């Protein structure tokens, strides 16, 4: 990909066919739900169509021409993703189905009797540390690990402003800690967490650290080597790629030490009736026919994002976020849950409205104005409990959103207040 052209949101919108469709009743679509799942550019759609139409075969095992073209495209996507996230080695990029699977893959490496590596041994007295702002996908796998092993699950609290509270870092992360897994950018608050102070403590006590980067990799340049953590999980569908494909990046030496997660085809070296030896990474963790076309689509997504420029995308979203924070705070009775400034914060803005339930907000916005937002607890129920609220309305922005769409949101909210006021 060549160097990025100047950022022109109208030009970018033309790359996403769905953005010009009309909803029933002639409503234009105002898509403010990219934190949930992003829309797809023509490049991704066409690359996937082209692969299915011209190159499709199974990967890694078919010796014919299609098999080798498919394998080349699938492994080529791995190269692209490795470059996109600054992975020191392409073999450290493991394709999964989504970020949840990536996190589960790591969680199941711990406390597994066939894993004799000291760092992955977990039992009673050991501790796992997460935070109160996690998505359920970075809570439940660790709860299950604690239940399997008798280990204790602990967590960082969240401040009233929606920041990670690391005041108790040294008491929370100790010699008993085996792994710390926290979100890079919150899917509710928009908060971008700084991993470095936590990582320093993690290294001091000899634990491992994982980042759930599902909401950061799509929106800012993420360099895994620079981050310095041990594992990073993210998903394709939030970064203009297809659903059904996720990524786990892990340090080679750790991935080598971990046992397989799922057993099956293509993850083996040799199989006897009573035992097997396993393929080297990444294939050790890719049992069965993988989501081939989805991986190829994710490769195209990465090409697309690179051609626009991650710095440009980040800057555009920062402008949108600042605009939205100002405009929303003008709405009476609206309370933003999360930082009210653009500092260390992404383009996800969640809020409550005095006396009006988010489901009612979302229904009117959608039905009257064609505005798609997400309502509910956004798979982060503990965070909502922490703020003493059952649900929020969430607007989340991406490279194709405009300030005019934020104006439409604000107009919509005023109308919602008229209906329920």
């Amino acid at each position, binding site marked *: 990909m060549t160097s990025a052209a100047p950022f022109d949101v109208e030009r970018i919108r033309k790359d996403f066919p769905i953005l010009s469709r009309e909803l029933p009743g002639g409503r234009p679509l105002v898509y403010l739900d990219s934190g949930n799942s992003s829309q797809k550019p023509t490049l991704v759609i066409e690359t996937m169509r082209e692969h299915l139409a011209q190159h499709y075969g199974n990967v890694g095992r078919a010796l014919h021409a299609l098999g080798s073209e498919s394998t080349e495209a699938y492994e080529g996507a791995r190269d692209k993703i490795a470059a996109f996230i600054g992975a020191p080695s392409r073999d450290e990029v493991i394709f999964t189905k989504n970020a949840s699977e990536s996190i589960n893959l790591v969680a199941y490496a711990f406390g597994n009797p066939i894993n004799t590596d000291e760092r992955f041994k977990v039992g009673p007295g050991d501790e796992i540390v997460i935070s109160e702002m996690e998505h359920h996908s970075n809570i439940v796998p660790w709860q299950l690990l604690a239940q399997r092993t008798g280990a204790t699950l602990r967590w960082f609290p969240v401040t009233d402003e929606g920041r990670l509270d690391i005041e108790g870092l040294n008491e929370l992360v100790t010699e008993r800690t085996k792994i710390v897994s926290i979100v890079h950018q919150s899917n509710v608050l928009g908060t971008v967490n700084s991993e470095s102070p936590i990582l320093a403590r993690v290294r001091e006590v000899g634990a491992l650290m994982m980042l759930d980067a599902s909401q950061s990799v799509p929106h800012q340049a993420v360099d895994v080597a620079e981050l310095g953590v041990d594992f990073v999980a993210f998903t394709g569908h939030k970064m203009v790629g297809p659903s059904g494909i996720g990524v786990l990046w892990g340090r080679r030496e750790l991935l080598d030490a971990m046992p397989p997660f799922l057993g099956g085809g293509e993850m083996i070296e040799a199989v006897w009736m009573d035992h097997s030896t396993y393929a080297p990474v990444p294939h050790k963790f890719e049992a069965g026919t993988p989501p081939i076309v989805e991986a190829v689509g994710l490769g195209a997504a990465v090409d697309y994002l690179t051609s626009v420029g991650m710095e440009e995308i980040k800057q555009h979203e920062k402008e949108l976020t600042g605009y939205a924070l100002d405009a929303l705070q003008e709405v009476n009775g609206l309370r933003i849950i999360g930082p009210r400034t653009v500092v260390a914060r992404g383009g996800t803005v969640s809020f409550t409205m005095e006396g009006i*339930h988010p*489901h009612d907000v979302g229904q*009117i916005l*959608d*039905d*009257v104005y064609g505005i798609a937002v997400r309502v*509910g607890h956004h798979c982060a129920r503990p965070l909502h409990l922490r703020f003493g609220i*059952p649900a929020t309305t969430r607007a989340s922005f991406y490279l194709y959103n405009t300030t005019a769409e934020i104006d439409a949101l604000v107009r919509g909210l005023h109308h919602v207040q008229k209906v*329920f006021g």
Partner: protein
Amino acid sequence: MIAESMYQELILEHYKHPQGRGLREPYDAEVHHVNPTCGDEVTMRVKLGDGGKVLDVSYDGQGCSISQAAASVLHELATGSTVHESLSVVDEFTRLMQGRGQVEADEDVLGDAVAFAGVAKFPARVKCALLAWMAYKDALVRSQA
């Protein structure tokens, strides 16, 4: 503007001024129901008298206008009626809600609850409307156990 037709005046009225809200003593059974997809919840108590008379339906909860208004309407319809009568209303209401907007409501049976007819066109909101009604059915079973 299909949704605005879902938000009938009567629903908004019950949402803004819920009838019979608040948990009361005495009661025969108490149940707590939640809608895990959206976090709506209701706690419901029923007190029965002689001859299957429903003496009180009291409730508390949180959620959207549809779920809260449905609880309020249920309170009005069930209190003072009988177990038998109120269950036939619950059945008709359930039939209406699960009818995907294709079912003609029996207004004689449903009374004010007919205002929820528009909700049936929104599959995501049907559970909101049914939350309190299913809790009521559950509470009746438990109070007769």
